[in-house]
């Protein structure tokens, strides 16, 4: 049981260091997948718009982390 818990913890650690940062990234992906088409954003702008969203998530997290 302990081995399973340790393996799960290690797996979690591969992806998540700061939960709010990971949620920000996943939230951006959900917005890109569902909100961009719903808002009628042109196909060619969707990829660059996703990049901008992720860059904002990164900058906001770094600003918060420097405390």
């Amino acid at each position, binding site marked *: 049981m302990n081995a399973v818990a340790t393996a799960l913890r290690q797996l979690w650690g591969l992806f998540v260091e700061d939960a709010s940062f990971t949620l920000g990234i996943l939230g951006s992906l959900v917005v890109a997948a569902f909100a961009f088409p719903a808002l009628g954003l042109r196909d*060619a702008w*969707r*990829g660059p718009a996703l990049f901008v969203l992720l860059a904002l998530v990164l900058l906001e997290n770094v600003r918060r*982390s420097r405390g």
Partner: protein
Amino acid sequence: MSWAHVGTVILAAFLASLVEFVEALTIVLAVGTTRGWRSALIGAAGGVLFLTALTLAVGPALQRIPLTALQLVVGVLLLLFGMRWLRKAILRAGGVIGLRDEAAIYAQETTRVDRVSLVTSFKAVTLEGLEVIFVVIATGARGLLVPAAVGAVLAGSLVILAGVGLRRPLARVPENTLKFAVGALLSGFGVFWVGEGLRYPWPGEDLALLGLVGGFTAIALLAVAAVRRSAGPALVVRPGIHP
């Protein structure tokens, strides 16, 4: 069948495969240099073995694999890895968290199998390798599979030779600088593959990757400059004492 036709197929398969091989090599070199060659090469070899077994087992039916779904999953995972590394490299470069004792940690990391390195190399080689197989099947249609495969093998050999040549110079770059670059690279690849998985057309197609990696690098450099203005001098942390 004329030699000009066969030559065109070889060249088309060579050039199209070259792009995919370079993308796979970039990731294997990046994780190998930062987290140890052993795991990166085991992951890459695992990807090659997996693809070989898959090709032998199902052959042309491979074309039915939903590549976009695979790109989406790999893209999300690479984004989570890459942006996590980039964030940490920014905070280290800015002095918010301590710089690690690179020589000691590098020695520690290269002597054991590292799961992140292994999985990342495996995924990159598998995904790009699948694309190479699709290229060979597409360019080698109408009975020209062998010339198309020759073109792909030539491209693969050239890229492997380039990788061997680049390995040594990369090892001289400081660890946090490399992690910074690898974070930007993996984040760029991650966004690109997520976009491909969602069927968003990238301006410039594969060339958009350069823009994405450059964009993440520029954003991260800006973040480091901003953090340095508000943080104290960098700390050095010994292995096992990570803040």
